[in-house]
């Protein structure tokens, strides 16, 4: 191979950093390998079937990976990584890119040795193997799971110049499993069996108290995720999915469902995942993830590299209380808004994709998206959020994101007064 081709140009761009990608892409248009010349892959044979029995992305996508914030936690065994939303085209998060959050690392569980115990204030306790759980009537539903600390770094100020690290503690997947209600019907509960404690079998035995009414509503004991078994990172072989509620209550590597009369007030619902307000008082249970949206193109990782002209603004919206009703987009920092187009499907407690055509004039712009869900709740500004939650809380930052688009097409994360 003597001629530089498109592939080499991309390699060069990736190696030299994001800013060069634009230049190399443009150069490729006039490179010798452009039509009518053939590229090397057109003049040779490719790989055979089952060359990679478990497929993986193109090597040119190697920058599309989960990333973490090294200064956030003392150890990666109790830390979080973030989904690259800037490279997620639709509403489904790839299993290999789904954000992670562990309290004691990822356990490796042999499904043959797995047991789920349902016990406590039930009439007939039950011990199930994975094969047995899979025999019950099942459901398959698409829901997002979002960590309540998604956006935590952005409470005091715009701090991380990245979509992935400001919004990426979320993923959306098709979850297959048995409704928790089916199992609770099976064991029988008492009129005062008000609380449920799912516990993980990881080293931290992660546990959270959940109200029985939610458990009887739409919670799923899930073993399937987007066309395959759960990934170990997502709780293999069994996790709880609590649609629309804080990520941490979707307990992974499940081993026990305990039923009781009162909540257990675990460390994960006091020290963690409770919200200290400015007056010294705290919110204990804030389970539901409020409506939120964000523009995923353009964003700091995906600037406008081809000068003024047509672009499609793209983004994702979701609500833990129901469906997305509208998404409105502003190009002027929130003075005026236009209604974006929503792509089907629009599902309950699920990501919804939105788009808006944009003829960019090459001038600086402040772009925002604002979701309204079907309860009528409208995504707030960061200024509105600060009024109740204080200046420096940790959780539940669902504020409107502002991206500053500069005349050169670069995009920065900013906050407005």
């Amino acid at each position: 191979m003597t001629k530089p081709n498109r592939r080499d140009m991309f390699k060069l761009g990736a190696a030299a950093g994001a800013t060069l990608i634009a230049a190399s892409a443009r150069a490729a248009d006039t490179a010798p390998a452009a039509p009518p010349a053939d590229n090397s892959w057109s003049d040779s044979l490719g790989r055979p079937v089952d060359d990679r029995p478990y497929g993986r992305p193109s090597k040119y996508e190697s920058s599309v990976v989960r990333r973490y914030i090294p200064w956030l936690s003392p150890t990666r065994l109790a830390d979080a990584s973030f989904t690259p939303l800037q490279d997620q085209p639709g509403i489904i998060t790839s299993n290999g890119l789904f954000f992670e959050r562990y309290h004691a690392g990822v356990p490796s569980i042999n499904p043959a040795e797995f047991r789920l115990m349902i016990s406590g204030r039930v009439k007939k306790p039950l011990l199930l193997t994975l094969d047995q759980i899979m025999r019950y009537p099942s459901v398959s539903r698409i829901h997002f799971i979002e960590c309540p600390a998604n956006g935590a770094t952005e409470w005091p100020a715009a701090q991380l110049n990245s979509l992935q690290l400001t919004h990426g503690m979320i993923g959306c997947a098709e979850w297959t499993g048995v409704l928790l209600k089916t199992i609770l019907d099976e064991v029988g509960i008492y009129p005062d069996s008000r609380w449920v404690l799912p516990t993980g079998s990881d080293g931290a035995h992660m546990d959270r108290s959940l109200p029985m009414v939610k458990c009887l509503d739409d919670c799923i004991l899930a073993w399937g995720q987007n066309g395959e078994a759960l990934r170990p990172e997502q709780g293999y072989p069994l996790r709880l999915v609590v649609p629309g509620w804080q990520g941490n209550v979707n307990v992974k590597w499940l081993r026990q469902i305990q039923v009781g009369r009162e909540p257990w007030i675990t460390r994960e619902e006091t020290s963690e995942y409770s919200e200290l307000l400015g007056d010294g008082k705290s919110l204990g249970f804030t389970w539901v993830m409020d409506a939120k949206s964000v523009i995923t193109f353009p964003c700091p990782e995906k600037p406008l590299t081809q000068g003024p002209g047509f672009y499609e603004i793209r983004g994702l919206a979701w609500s833990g209380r129901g469906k997305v009703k509208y998404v409105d987009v502003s190009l002027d920092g929130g003075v005026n808004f236009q209604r974006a187009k929503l792509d089907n499907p629009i599902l309950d407690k699920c990501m919804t994709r939105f788009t808006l055509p944009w003829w960019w004039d090459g001038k600086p712009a402040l772009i925002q998206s604002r979701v309204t869900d079907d309860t009528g709740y409208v995504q707030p500004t960061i200024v509105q959020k600060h009024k109740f939650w204080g200046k420096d809380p940790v959780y539940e930052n669902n504020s409107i994101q502002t991206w500053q688009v500069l005349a050169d097409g670069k995009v920065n994360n900013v906050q407005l007064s």
Partner: protein
Amino acid sequence: MSSSRKLVAILLGGALIATATAWAGDTTTLTPPGQAGDHNSPKYYKGIVSQKDLQVWRAEGDGNGKLAQYKPATKIGYYKIGTTPTAAQIAGWTIAVPPSGQNLPAGSGTSDKGATIYANNCAMCHGGFGEGANNYPALVGGVGSLGTPGPEKTVGSYWPYATTVWDYINRAMPFYAPHTLKPDEVYSLTAYILNMNGITKSAWVADAKSVPLVKMPNRNAFNWKDPRPVTHNIACMKNCVSASSIKITSNALTMNLTPRLTGPVDHMKGGK
């Protein structure tokens, strides 16, 4: 080896024998308080949880009475799948300790004994005096700081119930070797951490009776009822704010906190 470890060993050893208990069908008899399966009977909350918090918990749990309308789709045991766990299996896996203190095991411990265990197993991460080290959480301090601009959340200043301290140490610590401490050791560590926080005296003996009765400084500062919605934005479309009032108050570009976002994962300097 803790009881949960033992049980896992039994399971792994293939000794999981299906106790072929026949399905008893629907029964309305309540489990008597104190038996396995009733670890948080209301009478044990007297003097521990405020009446207000108990009421909120009950309303949250049963959806303000919605639970009364619940109709099971099938009879108990309808699918005839699975086995009934033995009492020993249930006891082995049921480790959660609620504020009532039910389910705390026999045993006891003191701050003195806890100091030695702490020095050998905990200090390397949480600091010699619980002050925290290398970004690992502090376990001591911060009492009175929560309403100030520099709040310090620790076991002492923030946690509402001492039962959670026992539960969490037993559940997850020491970090590198969870479920290796014996009940007496967990009691001793609980006593030591509470004592370092000035919450209990050095002579105090931690056991199943005394731990739930500890009055943690922050016990009544939690609002367990979710107050949302607390913002009331409207979906305004035109001239929502005056353009001249918009100022950029912060810009992440200037903060220098963002790891590299292309190429291999950036562990930054001093990464893990």
